[in-house]
Every structure is written in C-alpha cells, then in structure tokens.
C-alpha cells in the first residue's frame, strides 16, 4: 500500500461537521470532469491510489481511467462497499426483505438464477458474494488490489457478533478478485481482536486516528495500543477530526505514530492537496 491514499468524501458531499459545506461540495463536483480534475491534481502530487465508495458515479470515473491508460500508469482504486445510504433508504422504503430483493441481481422469483436460489435458501454468504459482484462490476479492468467493507457493515456485524461474515468477506475477495480485504471501522480495538482471532494475518484496517480522539471509539489509548502490537496494516482516516484540527498539527500527530501504514485524506483544491502531501512527506 502507498503511504498516501486519496479519499472521495469531498466529491459526494460527505462532510461530518457541516451540512452547509456538504452542499457546497455537491455543487462544486456536479460534473465527473470536476472529480477527474482533482484526482489528476492528486496524481500529479504523487498520490496514485483512490479509495472510494461504490457510488454509481464512480463507474464514470472508472470508464475515464480505462479510456486513458497512458495517463494512469500504476493507478489503483480501493473500492469501499456498500454505499450504505442507498441500502438504508431502501430498507426504510421497502423493508428489510424488500431491500434485499431489490438489490439481488435478477428476479428472485426466477429460482433458476443463482440470486433467487440464494435468497430462497437463505444462503447469506452467497447473497453477500452476489452483492460484492454487483458492486464490483464497475471496476472491471481497473487495478483493485484492496477491497474494503464499509464501516457501517463491518461495525454492524461486529456488534451482532456475526464474525464469520467478516471472515467470509475476506475469503471471497481473495478467491474471486485476487485482492486483499480491507475493513473500515470506527471500533479499531474490537475489530482488530476479532480479525486476528479469526486467523486473518496482518489485516488491513482503515480507522480514525486524530489528535482529538474524534471517532476513536474506546479511546485514544486503546487505539495506540493496537498500533504497538505491530500486527496489522493500519490506514489512518479522519486525521483532521472531520476538519477542526489544523493541518500541521493533525499530520504531525499521525506521522508521529509508529505503526500507521498509510494515511487517507480527501481535499477539493490543489493548494490543500499539495499542502497535505507536503506535510505527510516532511
């Protein structure tokens, strides 16, 4: 994994500390060109991995990358799935079963289809595999060496103690996509233990690390204790605490932590990208 990974929240109006900024970002990145332009700025600053949620629009970005291979040598995308609000709204609208049906490929009443079989026989692992395949479609022809499970699903399964589903995700992306599984979480100490207990060696975990302890559930000390064990590849996210920690002190903190493999950040402007990359490399 590269030291710096470029995130996508800014492109899709995901802002944890201001709804107003969120709207401004949605306006700024209304067109795919605007997104590509910023990805190119990051790439020119040496950031060659884009870590993104599986929004439908990411498909257009993938098409652009595939159409211009000369511009993206060695470029990698780390897909993060699923896009939770898509499913959450479907659950509110259609109920749990209705939502599952609507996202299963094919018509579930056509039992000849794999999806229908999986649904009717309650083969949950098969259903998960079909959903992963559906989400991965847009990345065909793109280098995706790590595939992430979004925190809302990782953490839901964690609380439900449905650990075998986490292990199944790990096994399937390895088998089908020859990729490593990554797990995004807001609960590092708990997840780290569960993954190691499940025999996943040196797991890839993306989680909040910031000076203020923002979204570091269980506390900063427990998080830093995981790093000290030196048996996981940790990606630090939310290093600016959602935006209220100044860049210099934010990066000094994560750079000073031994055991952080990579740093994930997102930014909308060339100035911010260059500044952040420069500070991380200092």
């Amino acid at each position: 994994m590269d030291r710096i990974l470029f995130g996508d929240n800014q492109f899709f109006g995901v802002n944890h500390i201001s709804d107003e900024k969120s709207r401004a970002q949605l306006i700024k990145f209304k067109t795919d060109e605007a997104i590509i332009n910023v990805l190119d700025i990051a790439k020119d600053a040496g950031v060659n991995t884009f870590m993104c949620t599986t929004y439908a629009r990411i498909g257009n970005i993938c098409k652009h990358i595939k159409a211009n291979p000369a511009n993206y040598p060695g470029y990698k995308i780390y897909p993060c799935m699923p896009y939770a609000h898509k499913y959450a709204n479907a659950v509110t609208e259609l109920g749990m079963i209705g939502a599952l049906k609507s996202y299963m490929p094919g018509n579930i009443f056509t039992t000849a289809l794999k999806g229908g079989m999986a649904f009717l026989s309650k083969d949950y692992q098969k259903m998960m595999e079909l959903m992963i395949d559906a989400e991965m479609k847009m990345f065909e022809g793109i280098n995706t060496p790590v595939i992430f499970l979004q925190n809302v699903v990782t953490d839901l399964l964690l609380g439900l103690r449905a650990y075998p589903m986490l292990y199944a995700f790990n096994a399937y992306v390895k088998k089908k996509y020859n990729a490593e599984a990554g797990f995004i979480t807001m609960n590092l100490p708990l997840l780290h233990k569960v993954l190691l207990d499940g025999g996943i060696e040196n797991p890839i975990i993306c989680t909040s690390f910031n000076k203020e302890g923002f979204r570091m559930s269980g506390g900063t000390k427990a998080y830093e204790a995981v790093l000290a064990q030196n048996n996981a590849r940790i990606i630090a996210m939310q290093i600016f605490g959602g935006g209220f920690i100044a860049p210099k002190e934010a990066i000094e903190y994560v750079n000073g932590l031994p055991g952080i493999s990579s740093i994930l950040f997102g930014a909308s402007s060339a100035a911010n990208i260059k500044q952040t990359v420069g500070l991380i490399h200092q």
Partner: protein
Amino acid sequence: MGLSHLSIAGAHPSVELVAAVDTATMVTDFLQKFSDIPCFNDTKKMLEQVTPDAVIIAVPTKYHAPLIQEFLEKNIHVFAEKPFTLSAADANRLTELAATKKLVNQVGYHNQFLGTFKELKKLLQLGAIGKLQHFTAEAYGPVITKPQPNTWRSNASEGGGCLYDYASHVLDLVNNCIAPVTEVKGSLLKNIYSAQTEDAVYSLLGLSTGLTGVLSVNWSDTTYRKMSTQLTITGSNGKIICDATELKLFLQTPVASLQYTEGWNILSVGELQEPVNFYLRGEEYSAQLDYFIAAVQGLVPNTTNTFAAAALTDNAIELIKKSAK
C-alpha cells in the same frame, strides 16, 4: 432498524443479550447461523423462556402500544423506537403505567443525544438569545423519491407517512428544546409520491410559552443526501441555527456566563460531541442506548426522552392531523 440496536447493545460491556425476536425468519436465521444470540419469532414464546431486565422495541409503530404494555406488565424496562405510539391516549396510559411500575422508560429520539442540539437546549435555558420571537423547525431528505409499493410505511393507520417519521423528530426537538406544542393553527399534509400518506408536512405551531413558529418537513427531497434536521430560533438578542453537524449562534450582546462572543459563533459537532465506546451509525445512536442501559443500572436518572417527553410529540402529531382536516 432493529439490527443496529441489537448490534449496539451487543457491543455494550454491561449487556448480556438473552434474546432477539423478529417475525422475519430471514433475520433470525441469520443470527442463529452467524452469531450466538438466542432467537425467537414471537415475544410470548420468548417471555416463557427468558426473563430479560430490559427490552428494546424496534418494530412498526402500530405494534408499539401493545408490546410496550406487555413488557411493562412483566416489570421489564422499555426502550421503544420513535414515534412512541399512534395516539395521545395510548401514550399517556403507557406513561402512567411505567411511572406506577417505576420502570425505566425511553423513546429513541436520538437527536437529543447530539452535541449540537444539547448545546442548543442549554443556550435556550440560559436565555442566550433573549426573549424568543419565532422558530422554524425543518427536516428534509430523500426517503420516498418515487411512487410507492405498499408497505406499512405507506399506511397512515400503521404509523407510515412523513408526519410519524421525519416530522416526529423535529416536533420532539421543538417540544423538548424550546417548549411543548399546545396549539396547531393550521397544517398542510401533502402527497408527493405516496398515494395514502403524506410526504410533506407544513404547519403553524403554538407552544405552551406563547411562542409561535413554522414546521416544514419533506421526505421526498432529493437535493439532500440523507436526513437533515434544522432548528432556527430568533430572539431579542440574536439567533441560533442548529443542525446535527453545526450550531451557529449570533449574539447581539455577549452573555456574561457564556464564553461566546458578539456576532457569529460557529461550533461543530466534533467539538461538542462526547465520544462513545462503540460507534455504529453516529454517536447519538450509541449514546441513547448507553444512557438507557445506565438508567437501568441505576447510574443515571431516567430524565431524557422519557415516555412523558415522547407523549408530547404524539400529542403534537394528533393536533397536526386534526388541524389538517
């Protein structure tokens, strides 16, 4: 969304999960297969076999009243999802029953556990913006964005519709941060995509203090990525605009007991929110269950989001429905 409650409770160090009940075998089969939580498809069968200290009820709203009553009568502490019930009469009856039985009772109005709205409540209690003149209470989001197939959410008698869902959150904030709604001067309940229920609610509200304001809620608004809830309150000494992520306070004259300065003060939830031990969907969802669990343990008083507080919202919903006829 019972699964997320179960997950949060499952990660709580003081909680032993003794049962999960769901009528959908899709859910219970999953839990039986992958986790260690004992499952049932019926509460009566569950209660024959286990004796829980406390229960979390997250089912379609029409089942709230009978289920809450069933558990209270068995002396079990109750956390119920919002809205509390479908009638003010049911809400008042269950509030009394919980009080008589001295049982912990709470309803899932999670906004009360957000740092921004907690600060808003504090500022209003301190009179920071002077004598209140007007409020606007809003919520917008993209839940129903095309014509609907029939589910319980498309049936008002089962607690479907925007009034019981989005609007209940906003009404609860008005009731418990400003003052209880006691009068509704007029309402528009509008259909956008739903055939049988409203997708938007617009009302003129009067509060017990005499303050008046506007309610504006629409869950068919695709310009929002997710639910956005906002209160704007104007007073003789300034204004507060508050949502889940930010509190913006304008003061004409600084208040001696507060550190805020003249003009705009912007506070983000990052600064205001207390961390939680297990995070799933937002600190507030974990914080409300942590609080309920602590109340059951006798560690905190049972004073936030009580049945009595939630009954005010059931009452306001009833007033809005009457005013729209």
